[in-house]
């Protein structure tokens, strides 16, 4: 295995494009090293992105949004007070990934690129309307986060393409987001169901909403029907029931070692309600 430490994303993309064998990018490494250890992935080229300037930085963009470097760990994300104020749901999703130790390494970008339908940080990003900056040998482009996952373990990134930053939109007034997941234990599990809700209120009434579900279909999905169920309401019981119904209806899960179809479908509705209440309270400044 060749270990590379490029000093720019252009170099990283070029290395990846020129590599002929199995290639992996290394950010936090909390998935790649596990796959290597299990013999599931034996890279010929491993491209460590952490020597690229700026990859561990969190910066406010000119429009009031945020640009998050690809090697920003969960621990750093959680320690950034201004970002936590703006996007608590995005941050809490990331902070649920693994243990304290894993938080010292794991990154939003890595969690996204691992392609897991159960990735805890991704529903929050999708609900937030986040996008990624992709660097390829030909240049850069911006793509919505929800367009990256392509099914279990797969992404839409082409060979030679590397995510070079995560971009969060400006929070704006009256906004709130939240992420909840269900796991059998209190920590250390992969989500059996995950749900992120991002909404905006004006005078108690929801004016905008985005709801994303994890672990209930082959890829993390934005569910417009869930948003429609609560937009225009003040999140009364009828709206919550409609939200839960829409969330359950959007599920296309599998039976596996972590949960059953029935369980995932039912709990998706429960979590959607609970996450919506938290997001709503945050939007109202409660």
């Amino acid at each position, binding site marked *: 295995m060749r270990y590379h430490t490029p000093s720019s994303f252009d170099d990283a993309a070029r290395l990846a494009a020129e590599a002929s064998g199995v290639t992996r990018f290394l950010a936090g490494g909390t998935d790649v*090293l596990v796959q290597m250890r299990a013999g599931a992935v034996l890279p010929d080229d491993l491209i460590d992105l952490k020597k690229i300037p700026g990859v561990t930085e969190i910066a406010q963009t000119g429009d009031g949004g945020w640009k998050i470097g690809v090697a920003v760990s969960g621990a750093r994300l959680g320690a950034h007070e201004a970002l936590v104020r703006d996007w608590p749901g995005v941050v809490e999703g990331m902070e649920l990934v693994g243990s304290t*130790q894993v938080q010292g*390494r794991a990154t939003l970008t890595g969690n996204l690129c691992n392609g897991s339908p159960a990735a805890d940080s991704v529903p929050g990003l999708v609900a937030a309307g986040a996008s990624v900056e992709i660097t390829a040998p030909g240049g850069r482009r911006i793509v919505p986060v929800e367009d990256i996952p392509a099914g279990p373990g797969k992404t839409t990134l082409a060979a030679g393409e590397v995510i070079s930053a995560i971009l969060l939109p400006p929070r704006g007034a009256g906004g709130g987001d939240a992420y909840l997941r269900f796991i059998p234990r209190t920590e250390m599990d992969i989500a059996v169901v995950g749900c992120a809700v991002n909404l905006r209120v004006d005078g108690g009434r929801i004016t905008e909403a985005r709801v994303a579900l994890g672990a209930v279909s082959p890829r993390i999905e934005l569910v417009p029907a869930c948003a429609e169920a609560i937009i225009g309401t003040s999140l009364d019981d009828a709206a919550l029931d409609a939200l839960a119904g829409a969330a359950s209806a959007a599920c296309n899960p599998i039976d596996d070692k972590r949960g059953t179809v029935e369980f995932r479908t039912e709990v998706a509705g429960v979590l959607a309600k609970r996450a919506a209440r938290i997001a709503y309270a945050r939007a109202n400044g409660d």
Partner: protein
Amino acid sequence: MSKMHVTTTVNGDEAEFLADPRETLLDCLRDHLGLTGSKEGCGTGDCGACSVTLDGELVCSCLVLGVEAAGKRVETIEGMANGNELHPLQRKFIEHAALQCGFCTPGFLVAAKALLERNPDPTETEVRYWLAGNLCRCTGYDKIVRAVLDAAADMRKEAA
């Protein structure tokens, strides 16, 4: 598969080793530097027995490549005591019988030290969640949590 020369700082001392780039930092600490205090319980970041700090950040050394340690500061269980003077956590673990087999103990101590450096007065719940990535199969965690809370109280007293 040529090996790479890595220069790093371990417990304050400069350390050098030759690493296959596939080897983890844990492999390098144990097999190249003879620092076997960090343990491998899972190799997947689920048990915390290999906990070390890397530039002050608590990590599982099984999820870090040895070559990534180049130019960084690594702190392991072997560097926790100051000579013969045990860290208060080490003293309290013995006093509270917070270990039975002792295999998970180095990881718990390194992780608990990182907690108390950030939060000198944690609640029981904060201790339990911070240490959720450190598995212990012997104690049921009761005496470990008590030892950490007691060490924190002692350290606050000493600092006052």
